């Protein structure tokens, strides 16, 4: 290439004295391999040389560290961290920290970083010390950011290895066909205050990042992201909107916490479907503008076509779908938040008008308003929460393809791909045996059967039989959608994914109430984004170690 990259100074070569090889103890509450210092295992510490290679064994075994010298620019950039918390082996003189300006910090004191700086929230806990073994100064740049009192004390951080992330708070507002008494802001505030009370946290103090799952056209705004922070307590905090369903939002919370820049995250999604006057028009607006939209037609025709293709390919029948409708809407009678609970019989479902044959009106989950908020925490914070943490053992999300023509109309590949990701992470060998309960998307009745088979929870063509045999009922072998699902609780648009997660968390915590499945410890949750998308997510939840 004729463009020669201008020569660069070697990385790390600083102005000032030659760089004495040293090593720094980088205390990272995220993934850090256990390290032996002075013959003793120090948890959650990774010893990193300045060029980034990690050491397992400190080179100066047995050497004595007269002082923990901290280099840096100015005093107020530091908060002194009580060295003894790092373990006896550090600093014979019991943990004084010297800053190169010679000023010695007493133990256990913390000063605000800048006089005017009232915002003590600091999502990062990257403590890095340069160990100076007394032979000449070392010019490494070191920096300890201000951490909040609570977290500064808890220096031990998290065990090494993959950090666990758990759901520690759930807020669900009752799903109702209309909620004229609430604006979307007030409805979301209602959901958020329930979740924060459940987790026992204050959003203005404890939460590091907020996530909303929403779509502009469902809300009626050009940029809905503008209207999300106030009602969650997210003003002046990191917050973003995902154009995806609840499990995609949960995945972002999972990744942000795993990346080490947050401890507690909040994921919110809601539906104000009763504000929408032209729901079919908006769903149709999601079709491809040049290949599909100009042809018109009610968007449910896509579900009608898929149901036709799926039933023929799988061998399940319309009767099986009617059984799903009856199962879920009757199960919802035991769930106080359900908006569309009803004593529906399979015959009624089968007798409803087939407006998009073979899809009948009762095969379609009716719309509802509602808000669901989850509080998600890294392991350390999760252990301190008010509730039993429900760990996210595995999570996956995937899109097949947006184009109607090139997608597979029979087996929901997006679910299969997302499931394989979640199964790999959770090390699930045989899905059919691995879970006590399932919460599966059922925005159309045939979808529950299709998703069960795509997840490997039922063999091809057997899902229908499982429903009719009662296996999927509350008392059955494999209780599925005992919450009532979307058919029974209501289709809450982008919040469907979070709704199923919330119902599964309540089950695993034993807080589900009258529809509690006793002894449920592992759950699989699956979501689909609804027409016209072919995307979905899978999450595997579990309690205990």
């Amino acid at each position, binding site marked *: 290439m004729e463009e020669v990259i201008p020569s660069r100074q070697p990385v790390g070569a600083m102005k000032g004295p030659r760089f004495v090889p040293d090593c720094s103890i980088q205390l990272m509450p995220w993934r850090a391999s256990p390290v032996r210092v002075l013959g003793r295992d120090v948890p959650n510490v990774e010893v990193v040389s300045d060029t980034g290679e990690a050491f397992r064994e400190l080179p100066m075994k047995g050497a004595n560290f007269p002082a923990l010298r901290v280099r840096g620019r100015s005093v107020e950039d530091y908060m002194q961290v009580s060295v003894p918390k790092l373990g006896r082996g550090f600093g014979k003189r019991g943990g004084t920290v010297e800053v190169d300006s010679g000023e010695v910090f007493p133990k256990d004191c913390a000063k605000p970083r800048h006089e005017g700086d009232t915002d003590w929230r600091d999502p990062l806990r990257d403590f890095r010390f340069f160990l100076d073994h007394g032979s000449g100064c070392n010019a490494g740049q070191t920096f300890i950011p201000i951490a909040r009192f609570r977290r500064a004390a808890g220096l031990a951080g998290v065990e090494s290895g993959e950090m666990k992330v758990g759901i520690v708070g759930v807020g669900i507002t009752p799903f109702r066909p209309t909620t*004229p*008494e*609430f604006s979307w802001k*007030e409805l979301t*505030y*209602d959901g958020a*205050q329930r979740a924060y009370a459940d987790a026992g946290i204050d959003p203005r103090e404890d939460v590091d990042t907020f996530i909303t799952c929403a779509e*502009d*056209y469902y809300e*009626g*705004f*050009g940029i809905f992201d503008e209207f999300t922070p106030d009602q969650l307590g997210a003003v002046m905090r990191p917050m973003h909107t995902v154009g995806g369903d609840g499990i995609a939002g949960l995945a972002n919370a999972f990744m942000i916490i795993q990346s080490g820049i947050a401890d507690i995250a909040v994921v919110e999604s809601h539906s104000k479907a009763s*504000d929408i006057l*032209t729901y*079919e*028009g908006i769903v*149709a607006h999601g079709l491809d*503008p*040049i*290949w*599909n939209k*100009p*042809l*018109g*037609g*009610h*968007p*449910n*025709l*896509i579900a*009608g*076509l*898929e*149901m*036709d*293709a799926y039933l*023929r390919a799988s061998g399940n029948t319309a009767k099986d779908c009617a059984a799903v409708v009856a199962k879920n809407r009757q199960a919802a009678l035991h769930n106080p938040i359900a908006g569309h609970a009803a004593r529906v019989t399979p015959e009624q479902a089968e007798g409803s*008008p*087939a*407006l*998009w*044959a*073979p*899809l009948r009106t009762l095969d379609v989950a009716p719309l509802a308003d509602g808000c669901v908020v989850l509080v998600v925490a890294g392991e350390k914070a999760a252990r301190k929460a008010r509730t039993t943490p429900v760990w996210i053992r595995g999570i996956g999300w995937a899109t097949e*393809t947006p*184009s*109607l*023509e*090139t997608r597979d*109309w029979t087996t929901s590949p997006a679910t299969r791909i997302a499931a394989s990701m979640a199964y790999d992470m959770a090390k699930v060998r045989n899905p059919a045996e691995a879970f006590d309960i399932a919460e599966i998307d059922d925005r159309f009745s045939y979808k529950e059967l299709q998703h069960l088979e795509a997840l490997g929870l039922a063999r091809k063509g057997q899902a229908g039989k499982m429903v009719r045999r009662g296996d999927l009922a509350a008392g059955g072998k494999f209780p599925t959608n005992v919450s009532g699902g979307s058919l029974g609780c209501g289709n809450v648009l982008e919040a469907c994914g979070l709704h199923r997660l919330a119902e599964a968390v309540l089950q695993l915590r034993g807080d589900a109430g009258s529809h509690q499945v006793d002894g449920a410890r592992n759950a699989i949750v699956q979501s689909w984004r609804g027409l016209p998308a072919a995307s979905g997510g899978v999450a595997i939840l579990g309690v205990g170690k």
Partner: protein
Amino acid sequence: MTFLERTTDVRRFRHWPGHIEADYIYTSGIAGETFFRELRENGRILGARCPQCGTQWLPPKLFCETCFRETTDWVEAPATGQVEAVSVVHVDAKGKPLDSPEVWALIRFAGFKGGFVHRLLVDPRKARAGLRVHPIVKPRSERVGAITDIVGFGP
């Protein structure tokens, strides 16, 4: 109690009407341009072929979904396709009852990945998967270079 005060007289709750509509002109894009010109001029249906994996896409795409390479070659689709799925629809786009039902179908073409989701111009009672159908195209004078140039698919 969400708030310290809650209205109990439902007549006092207001709502605010509005919309987020605008007029749109969607260009057919690079691949679409070739397809719709050919459809308009000669009434033929073209698919795109990926040079790397040979997959033939219908409707044509500028890129191959699997190898994410540009599809450079054009291939004419076979004269007839086969119905894979059928749905008989009794309501219009706004959910109002239709005088006579519309039959919709997913039509596959041999050798092509994809196909068309379009109207199936047969009596609802005779509409079933497996039917061999061909595109019914408007006369040249009425064709404008859009998917609506194809009225539907018939036996």
